[in-house]
């Protein structure tokens, strides 16, 4: 457990000193969402209707932006070999890196989302559900994305390959995230959707670190 927090602390420190990744992800999120009113016109009804979908899709794309760096930097400078040789299960180290990734990308996205929801005229009823859906959805994105990031290690044009691999796997998060917000806005219960999102998160939490660890070992062979 000590080792888990050691890796989290190191990755957070690296992210803070380098700074660029979190800022880039949130900026991408904000800019892309702001483009939509320009693209589809300023009518309140239309924007309100698409707001949940736009926010979730954009958040998903934004979180994918920084994924290819998750293991790439460590792979290039030899740190990954040493991380693999840490006297702890590799899944624990990988889970720590995924947590750090979520804290530096998923969490800022979650904070930015309500502000952008106002911009898109989302009804106030949807706000708490939006936050809940993001809180359950974005960690899943980091976890599933980590598998993809480990699989494309060492591949040329890994970033493009990564999106092809990962985007289809993000679809359930998108469907139930948007479903939850739409239900809340229409005055229905968002609970079933959120429970399914929580279920997906639980499954990803249990499986993704180990799948990712296996892919990393493969990449280093």
């Amino acid at each position, binding site marked *: 457990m000590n080792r888990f927090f050691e890796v989290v602390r190191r990755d957070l*420190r690296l992210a803070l000193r380098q700074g660029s990744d979190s800022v880039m992800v949130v900026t991408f999120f904000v800019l892309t969402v702001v483009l939509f009113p320009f693209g589809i016109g300023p009518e309140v009804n239309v924007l309100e209707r698409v707001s949940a979908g736009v926010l979730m899709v954009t958040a998903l794309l934004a979180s994918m932006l920084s994924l290819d760096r998750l293991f790439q930097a460590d792979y290039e400078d030899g740190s990954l070999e040493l991380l693999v040789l840490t*006297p702890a299960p590799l899944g624990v180290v990988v889970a720590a890196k995924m947590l750090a990734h979520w804290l530096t990308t998923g969490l800022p996205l979650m904070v930015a989302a309500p502000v952008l929801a106002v911009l898109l005229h989302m009804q106030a009823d949807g706000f708490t559900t939006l936050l809940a859906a993001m809180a359950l959805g974005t960690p899943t994105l980091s976890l599933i994305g980590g598998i993809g990031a480990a699989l494309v290690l060492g591949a040329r044009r890994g970033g493009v390959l990564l999106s092809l691999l990962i985007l289809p796997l993000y679809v359930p998060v998108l469907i139930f995230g948007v479903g939850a917000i739409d239900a809340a806005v229409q005055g229905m219960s968002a609970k079933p959707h959120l429970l399914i999102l929580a279920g997906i998160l639980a499954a990803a939490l249990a499986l993704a670190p180990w799948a990712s660890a296996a892919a990393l070992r493969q990449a280093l062979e």
Partner: protein
Amino acid sequence: MVPAMIKQGCSTFSGQDLACVRGGRVVFAGLDFSLESGGALVLLGPNGSGKSSLLRVLAGLLRPAHGVLAWNAGAVADDPEAHAARTHYLGHHDAIKPVLTVAENLRFWAHLHDPHAERAGRAVDGALERFGLSHLSTIPGKMLSAGQKRRTNLARLLAAPSELWLLDEPTTALDKASIKALEKVLAEHRADGGMVVLSTHAEVELPGSAELHLDRFTTPLHDDDDDDEAAA
């Protein structure tokens, strides 16, 4: 200055009939070796003869295509975490993060290897001193020269104690004084009951070390002239 190691008697590390296949090519086959506490093994051979591959096999990064590695009586593959805990592997890359200071880089690896923070803290300072890095401890990794990076990586060996050191060309980019310091550290490690496996093209003084010529284990059927270091 170097933390005394807690030794529990004499250990042996051995490999039997090891073979390694990289990209469909047999790098070496039928390789045996045995190493006891205080022993050292120097891997020799031209580029591409499989020195790096063998070290990666010994570290557990590569699975041998054939054969078994054993620590005392138990197979290494049965408990990879215990093997990782007693091993330090030093590869071609120095694993130095450009935005972390020398001390931070070192402390991270020391804590990760041995999470008992207090002990690691003191060991880090000692390790920096041994490799003449004390005055650089607050310098970020990106300001270091190649030799200084290598010394920081070498200091990792002392920052957290481990029985078995696997060093892949540790003298790369080192000046003469640093090679001397490394020789001294290696001698102390062995006097303490540690083991060293090392590949090198430079002269490193290791009294009483065994030599393993890897070109003797390459299969004659395959032509390996044009291949660079297999694990590069």
